[in-house]
């Protein structure tokens, strides 16, 4: 009843190919965007810094991995490594060419990650499934090692860290310590919207269809004339590009500095894959749900419990949060193996037929 496409006629092909063909979807997106724009000015600094910023930064990486895992069917455990490539590339670029705007460099750092991603994606031509997942760990460990071991990457800083310098846009600081959180948030949001739009167009077009064909059965796809080499490597490139941008955002707009090799560790790779699965493979909206699950939930559980009077703090909270996250994951997978995105679809379906059961 609330969500019904009856009466919305498409009279030309352009309408039919629109990203959001249904009016309610367009309204919904507009509302979400409006909320996203107002949000930084109403929530507390704590929420902004510890939940919203990492959520936005990481969601780009989750979309990236979803392109690879959800749309092309290749599992990768090297996402954090590719994020690191993006972060370090951005750092090098902005310290070598400080006059170019940082936003351009954040975007450009994705290309470096893409190049590295293609190289480590080469085994995917021979290996599949979980074998490939484990093989991509080689990328993860090698890159992590390289971040610590190649001092050129962090400009020979004796403490081995990269510190985000002050960069401005129209005279307003956007990175570095003096930048306002709201500004950082809006820049991140801009990137997220842009990258989501890009990803959504990619997966809905010819390229996306070839990826999905490869995912469903690569030999069949090859027989139909899809070049596996191109499709798989392109998926790795695009996915790593997203991860790279996400890494740059993560360090430049969220952390504000990183210790070589510890930020982009294997743990983060698993978290990103985790977000893809929990959110729903092959779904854009699912990527956001998944990111929210891994970023916001632990923080809310950890700091929210004392706020409502459950006096659990410190290490005990950490342990209990881990247990809850673990149990909840298993529960969610049992209830809906296709992720939170599937629950979202079911809800839409319910809205469509409401008040009737079906």
């Amino acid at each position, binding site marked *: 009843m609330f969500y019904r496409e009856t009466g919305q006629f498409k009279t030309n092909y352009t309408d039919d190919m629109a990203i959001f063909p249904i009016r309610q979807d367009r309204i919904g997106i507009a509302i979400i965007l409006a909320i996203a724009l107002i949000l930084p000015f109403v929530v507390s600094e704590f929420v902004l810094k510890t939940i919203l910023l990492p959520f936005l930064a990481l969601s780009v990486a989750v979309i990236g991995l979803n392109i690879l895992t959800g749309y092309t069917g290749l599992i990768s455990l090297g996402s954090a490594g590719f994020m690191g490539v993006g972060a370090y590339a951005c750092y090098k670029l902005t310290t070598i060419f400080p006059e170019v705007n940082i936003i351009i460099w954040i975007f450009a750092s994705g290309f470096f990650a893409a190049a590295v991603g293609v190289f480590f994606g080469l085994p995917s031509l021979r290996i599949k499934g979980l*074998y490939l997942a484990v093989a991509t760990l080689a990328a993860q460990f090698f890159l992590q090692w390289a971040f610590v071991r190649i001092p050129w990457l962090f400009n020979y800083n004796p403490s081995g860290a990269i510190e985000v310098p002050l960069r401005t846009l129209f005279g307003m600081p956007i990175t570095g310590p003096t930048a306002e959180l709201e500004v950082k948030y809006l820049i991140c949001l801009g990137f997220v919207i842009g990258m989501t739009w890009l990803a959504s167009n990619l997966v809905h077009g010819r390229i996306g269809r070839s990826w999905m064909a490869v995912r469903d059965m690569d030999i069949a796809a090859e027989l139909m004339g899809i070049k596996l080499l191109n499709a798989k490597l392109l998926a790795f490139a695009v996915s790593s590009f997203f991860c790279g941008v996400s890494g740059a955002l993560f360090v430049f707009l969220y952390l504000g500095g990183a210790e070589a090799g510890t930020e982009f560790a294997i743990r983060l790779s698993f978290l990103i894959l985790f977000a893809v699965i929990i959110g729903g493979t092959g779904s854009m909206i699912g990527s956001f749900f998944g990111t929210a699950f891994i970023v916001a939930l632990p923080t809310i559980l950890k700091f929210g419990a004392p706020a409502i009077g459950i006096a659990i703090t410190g290490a005990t909270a950490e342990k209990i949060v881990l247990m809850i996250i*673990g149990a909840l994951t*298993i529960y969610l997978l049992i209830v809906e193996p296709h992720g939170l995105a599937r629950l979202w679809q079911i809800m839409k379906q319910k809205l469509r037929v409401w008040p009737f059961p079906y």
Partner: protein
Amino acid sequence: MSAVTSSALRPLLSPALMATLKGLGILAAIALAIVLLVHSGAMPKGSIGHKVLAAPFIDMWDLPDLLVQTLWEGLVAGVLYALIALGFVLIFKASGVFNFAQGIMVVFSALTLVGSYEIMTQRMGLPPGTVVAILALMIAIATMFVLAWLVERIVLRPLVNQNEIIMLMATVGLTYFLIGFGEYIFGGNPKVMITAQLGLPVGQTQFNILGGRVNIQHLDVAAAVIASIMIAGLAFFFQYTRIGRALRAVADSHKAALSVGISLNQIWVIVWFTAGVVALVTGIMWGARSDVSFALEIIALKALPVLILGGFTSVPGAIVGGLIIGIGEKMGEGYWGPLFGGGIETWLAYVIALGFLLFRPQGLFGEKIIERI
């Protein structure tokens, strides 16, 4: 003539053996080429070629005792990697689950052992010693059984027939839960393994051979022996017992096994329990070498290259793979690591495994992947 011999030999030489022989031939040719290059003066001392291709071998020749020691350390590490990999393989074979929680099971089982020993000796006032240690061991084994049963009940049964990546994620969830639970119960501080109390040998023997010394830790010998016994025992169990046969049937086809009356649920509990016991043994061995701490969980990642090398479904693969990775890694780090500034061990194992994988995508011993449209 040669064609005749080779065809006559064919039944004797399996394809795998032929491939090995071929590989050895190529290696010998490379070695000869290096020797020639060094002697002809094409690779002067100090050049990159010399550093990479010749210097490490000269090192090995000059200090044979160190070479033996390195090989031994590699062998021991390899046995331990093989044990972790074995836990993975058992579960993957029987239930198609890539059990990411194997690493935390190693930590958790060892913690249960040490933790219950601590509780019994310190809080309940039982006299420390072998008796209590054995009791603690039994408690740990029982805990692993309960864990296996719960996992089957709560995780596996509702998720049967799901995509492998969903199962992987479920075990990641299990990992998070067990980390939180373990830290909640036993605390986060590292614990000392009760090596002597369990009757495991401590100390070392020094052999003065080859113009140097080779240290053999008694514990490492024990680890190798126990691991071998365990693997032999498992092989026997799989080969000759009724449950073992049922297990192999399940590994071949869930549906066919079900149709002949094999209870999948029962088999899964048994397999997870076996993997738990393997984890416990690994935990004891590794805990005795260093500490029982949550950092040990990362060690389990070391089993992953072993797995892709040996194949997810092959028990001999896990063992051979473990040894190749263990020895390759120690040799690589020891002799070639300094060229990179050291610390290459973390990724070297993966590179070794990838090298093999490019030629055999299903691993050394994995079942051949046949794809049909």
